[in-house]
């Protein structure tokens, strides 16, 4: 956990390859598996490697690591099927680092593909009526994330005075980043008034405060840092990682005004990297809904409790602000397949390589905060342009 342990555990790791599918959005010609394959081929090519170089595989079911490895002709020495929602890929990076340090694998491929919009070759989600959420939440008319992830916010608004306008501004700020990104789904500027005039989905959330639903994929190649010079693109160093879980049911969240999983995963990642918030040049916070960046900024300690809404509304996180946040446009404007975490990592990598569409000025450190389920799980990555000093 402390700074010194990393080196003693056999060195650090890098992201050597990173890529998304050729296109994102509405892709009815791609099955879920095909999205994994396309992302994987692009990431392996980005690393200048061939599929024969891959000896470890990680992804979420379904299709899961066995299917993806088999489809690509990979015979893995190490397999991770951790499936804890949209943050799973951040946990895969963390687990891959541990496996590479332990000598279980040398070059790990982490894939994501999801036909979230077109639902081609996608498994059907069904709630088990005897599970705890099936017994104690579903009978009350919950129907996916819009009806559950959203529930804590009114309590936060009452406790900390967050206004409807400040919540709406989260979408406005991210649209300003998306306007600079040709791959973003939504690029036209919006105002607070536009957001508040959009259809009510689940009060207090309007349509423009909810993420997109798209098709797409992406993949990463993780390997040991002693190979950093061997790849065509600049290495992105994994400086610190963290993971945690809180609750499978939103109703059982400890405190509706903060995410314990965000806080604990962040604390572990920052401690391992040996950094504080002042060291962070670029930040990605999983934004399935407009309140999640608010909870994330506070959980990671960038602002005090209750200050994130005004912080965003004052322009600090948009282009030209002091803390560039969700610079691809985020789940609200860029893309959101259902498990968005892979895309948050991809943008962190692009920023550190200097190849982002809305490039921040020479960032040294990028932090990625992932969410799984409805504040259920979290993974945090601290990525750097340079090895840990």
């Amino acid at each position, binding site marked *: 956990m402390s700074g010194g342990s990393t080196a003693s555990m056999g060195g650090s790791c890098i992201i050597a390859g990173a890529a998304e599918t050729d296109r994102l959005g509405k892709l009815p010609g791609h099955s879920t598996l095909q999205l994994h394959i396309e992302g994987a081929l692009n990431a392996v090519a980005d690393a200048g490697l061939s599929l024969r170089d891959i000896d470890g595989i990680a992804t979420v079911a379904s299709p899961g690591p066995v299917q993806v490895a088999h489809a690509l002709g990979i015979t893995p020495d190490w397999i991770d099927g951790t499936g804890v929602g949209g943050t799973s890929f951040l946990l895969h990076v963390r687990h891959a680092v541990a496996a590479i340090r332990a000598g279980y694998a040398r070059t790990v491929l982490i894939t994501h593909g999801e036909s979230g919009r077109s639902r081609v070759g996608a498994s059907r989600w069904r709630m088990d*009526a*005897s599970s705890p959420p099936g017994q104690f939440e579903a009978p009350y*008319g919950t129907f996916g994330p819009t009806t559950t992830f959203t*529930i*804590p916010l009114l309590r936060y608004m009452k406790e900390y005075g967050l206004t409807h306008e400040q919540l709406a501004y989260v979408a406005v700020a991210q649209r300003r980043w998306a306007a600079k990104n040709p791959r973003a789904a939504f690029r036209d500027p919006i105002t607070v008034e536009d957001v508040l005039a959009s259809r009510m989905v689940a009060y207090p959330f309007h349509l423009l405060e909810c993420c997109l639903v798209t098709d797409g994929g992406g993949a990463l190649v993780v390997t040991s840092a002693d190979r950093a010079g061997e790849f065509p693109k600049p290495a992105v160093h994994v400086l610190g990682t963290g993971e945690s879980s809180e609750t499978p049911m939103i*109703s059982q969240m400890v405190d*509706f005004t903060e995410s314990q999983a965000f806080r604990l995963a962040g604390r572990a990642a920052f401690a391992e990297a040996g950094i504080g918030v002042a060291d962070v040049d670029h930040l990605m916070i999983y934004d399935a809904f407009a309140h999640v960046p608010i909870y994330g900024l506070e959980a990671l300690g960038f602002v005090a409790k209750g200050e994130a809404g005004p912080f965003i509304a004052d322009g600090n996180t948009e282009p030209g602000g002091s803390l560039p946040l969700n610079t691809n446009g985020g789940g609200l404007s860029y893309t959101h397949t259902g498990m968005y975490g892979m895309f948050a990592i991809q943008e962190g990598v692009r920023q550190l390589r200097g190849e982002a569409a809305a490039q921040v000025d020479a960032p040294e450190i990028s932090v990625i905060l992932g969410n799984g389920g409805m504040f259920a799980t979290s993974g945090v990555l601290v990525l750097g342009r340079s090895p840990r000093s």
Partner: protein
Amino acid sequence: MAAKPVPVPTPETQPFWDGCAAGELRIQRCDDCGRPYFYPRPVCPACGSQNVRWFAASGRATLYSYVINHRPAPGFEDDTPYAIAVVELEEGPRMMTNITGLPATPEALELDMPLRVRFEPRGDVSLPVFGPEES
């Protein structure tokens, strides 16, 4: 129109649903650390003790948070918009519920307002919902 979801009890939750059928909100309390908890399970989430027992909660609660849902779950088409709420029981634990006897509007649903449990038939179980103290 699809029917609303009906919970399927498991052995460890059956006493809760039996309580609902008898008009009581039965939850568990740990005999070692004294903490009451919900949802039903055989281990105290505060201290890990298995020395836990069922008791009847008062049924009094306050409104902790909610959304007013405009995109109905299957079976809820005629109720839309409807409030999906979390209440805090007088004893401390929180549970999800629906609000009955009040309009599903931000004006009618004030956080921390007092509520009281009542039970509605749902398939072969009784489902706890919450409404205003009076009525």
